[in-house]
């Protein structure tokens, strides 16, 4: 009787594994680890308030760098989750910037009327910074470690406020 019950439990366990394994996403399956790590290309870009923001300003803390455009549907889709993530991490020693590719200040400013975002939005109006980073499509997001090296990459939209994903970034803190 005990043996039968054991077998029954084993089968049920296998079934559950099989049914749910495609839906279980660990952080490692949400971000691509960059090996070997490479230096993040320096940038010096203007934000919507006219301030110059540099990559080196963030040295010493993990940094999320998102490349996007207002006309890019998946970029728009992930922006609310980026804002939610920012509200969680902004006081935890983690920085976030979104670099707009090729659009002007007015276009991005108008966009923020529909998508209220409180993290820095930087303007790469000539696309020259985007060209120096390993961006293939929009959106692409990089995680830069406190030493200024790119350690993770995500191509396409993600739910940035997922705890598993944020935990990976928290682990980069010194």
């Amino acid at each position, binding site marked *: 009787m005990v043996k039968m019950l054991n077998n029954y439990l084993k*089968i049920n366990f*296998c079934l559950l594994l099989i049914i749910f*394994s495609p839906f279980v996403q660990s952080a490692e399956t949400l971000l691509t680890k960059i090996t070997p790590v490479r230096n993040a290309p320096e940038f010096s870009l203007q934000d919507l308030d006219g301030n110059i923001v540099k990559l080196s300003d963030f040295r010493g803390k993990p940094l999320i760098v998102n490349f996007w455009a207002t006309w890019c549907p998946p970029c728009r889709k992930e922006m609310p989750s980026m804002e939610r993530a920012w509200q969680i991490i902004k006081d935890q020693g983690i920085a976030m910037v979104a670099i707009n590719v090729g659009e002007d200040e007015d276009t991005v400013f108008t966009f923020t009327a529909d998508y209220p975002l409180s993290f820095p939005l930087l303007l790469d*109006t000539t*696309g020259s910074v985007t060209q120096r980073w390993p961006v293939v*499509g929009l959106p692409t997001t990089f995680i830069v470690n406190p030493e200024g090296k790119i350690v993770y990459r995500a*191509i396409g939209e993600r739910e940035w406020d997922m705890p598993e994903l944020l935990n990976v970034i928290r682990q980069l803190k010194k």
Partner: protein
Amino acid sequence: MLSVNKVFTILLLTFTSAVSVASQTMTQNQDTKLINWSLIEHGLHLQLIQRTPDQTRGFFLGRGFSNAVTNDIATQCVFQTIVRNTDKYSGKAITLPLPTWVVHYQNKSQPIKLKEKWDSQWSTSEVAMASRLAFRWATFPTQQTFEPSGDRNWGMISMGLPPGASFDLTVKWQHGDQNHSATIKAMQCPADGQNAK
């Protein structure tokens, strides 16, 4: 009665066959009437969705392109393309080299019209830098590798065919170190003047 080992084997076989299943589907959006061709095979999930010439005109006029250039792009059979790596099991990347794709139209074969070819035919005065940037990022990368970490991308692809043309498309990709190809039959460029709504 089946033993545990037999049941486990059956479940494993069911599981592995489900993973390697290939499918091609064609669906029509009931609201927009636009057709979506979908291919799921060997780690690749590819969607090719019709874009009406008017949709494409709207996008590029809004990005600062002239009427003439916009019309040229819009009338060369543009599809919205969405690609995902669906391989969560073997951990293999997929790579799509667009230059290897083949359009079969009226008994002839031709490559798809790549973004580099579009860009090279425009003079500096004809298309401003900001517009070129928008074109570059709104069109699908000529070659891209998708890691199995949820990588996905989207972008427009031009088949270089007239509105209303019917064609077959041979798609090629790599899954890990294996080369694969599949032909999607009877695809259709949307006719000009057809509205998305």
